[in-house]
């Protein structure tokens, strides 16, 4: 198992133009970032665009990151503003109108099930206020602590706790029966 390098060290290497260190940061954050972006922009294609733009924006501004600060919360604040800008620019396309064109696993039945489940989740997330939605996704998908969620959103730790609590409850109410049925069928 490869030894994980510390994040401030990786950031220092990226500041010197180290492509391998940048690749390591991409590996750590890209997948969860995709989920966060998807929860904001609503479509897989826009989520990919948002994540790519956010990484490039983060790279151009990485000198602004205070020495010793963790990359994650700062990156998610960049991602969030990038995704919100993209969403505004794209004119809030409806999820139902845009086909989910992910390449998938090569098994059509699994892909379809996944796509349907995702659409339910996105529809449920859409009902939450934006900060609450992002807080839940960062907490549950990225595995951030409340302090890191708070730092990413620019709010107090207590506010982050409240967002996650209310967001999770709302999603459980909305998705619980659907997801149980979906898992039971699978």
């Amino acid at each position: 198992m490869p030894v994980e390098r510390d994040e401030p060290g990786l950031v220092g290497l990226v500041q010197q133009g180290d492509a391998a260190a940048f690749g390591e940061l991409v590996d750590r954050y890209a997948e969860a970032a995709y989920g966060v972006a998807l929860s904001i922009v609503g479509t897989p294609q826009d989520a990919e665009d948002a994540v790519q733009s956010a990484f490039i924006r983060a790279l151009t501004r990485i000198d602004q990151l205070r020495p010793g600060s963790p990359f994650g919360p700062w990156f998610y604040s960049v991602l969030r503003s990038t995704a919100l800008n993209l969403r505004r620019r794209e004119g809030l396309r409806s999820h139902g109108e845009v086909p989910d064109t992910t390449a998938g696993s090569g098994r059509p039945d699994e892909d379809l099930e996944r796509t349907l489940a995702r659409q339910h989740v996105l529809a449920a997330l859409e009902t939450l206020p934006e900060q609450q939605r992002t807080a839940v996704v960062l907490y549950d998908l990225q595995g951030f602590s409340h302090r890191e969620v708070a730092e990413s959103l620019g709010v107090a730790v207590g506010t982050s706790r409240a967002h996650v609590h209310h967001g999770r409850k709302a999603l459980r109410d909305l998705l619980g029966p659907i997801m149980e049925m979906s898992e039971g069928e699978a």
Partner: protein
Amino acid sequence: MRDRPRWFDTMRPDEVTAARLRRAILAAAQPLLAARRDSWWDVASNWATLLTPVAAVLTLLFAGLAIRQGLPGDESTASSTESSFVVDHLRSEVVPAGFTSERTDDPDNVFAALGEADAKASDVERYLNGELETSPGER
């Protein structure tokens, strides 16, 4: 690791999407990363920029020290004062009889001076013998 709702797994990209996303990010980042990598010339010029003022300060410092050592110090001043005192003292001395303060090559002047000295010596002898009432110095 904390318990995570299962439905969040649907929010992750599948393997194909994740690989495509990674490739796209790294490809877009390459020119930016390359621009960040300093060439050896950049490193050298950065060092030169830093060291130039240091070198200038050191040069000024050594030049100042060298100039200061070249100037006459307290010891040489004292010796000079001593020399001038001796010279002044010697100048104040009365020139002995038969010598003039001015050098001359004229033999008449020399003989005249010697004659004058002889006359003075003869006067002193006559005074001592009682032939003169006043001493040659009182005249």
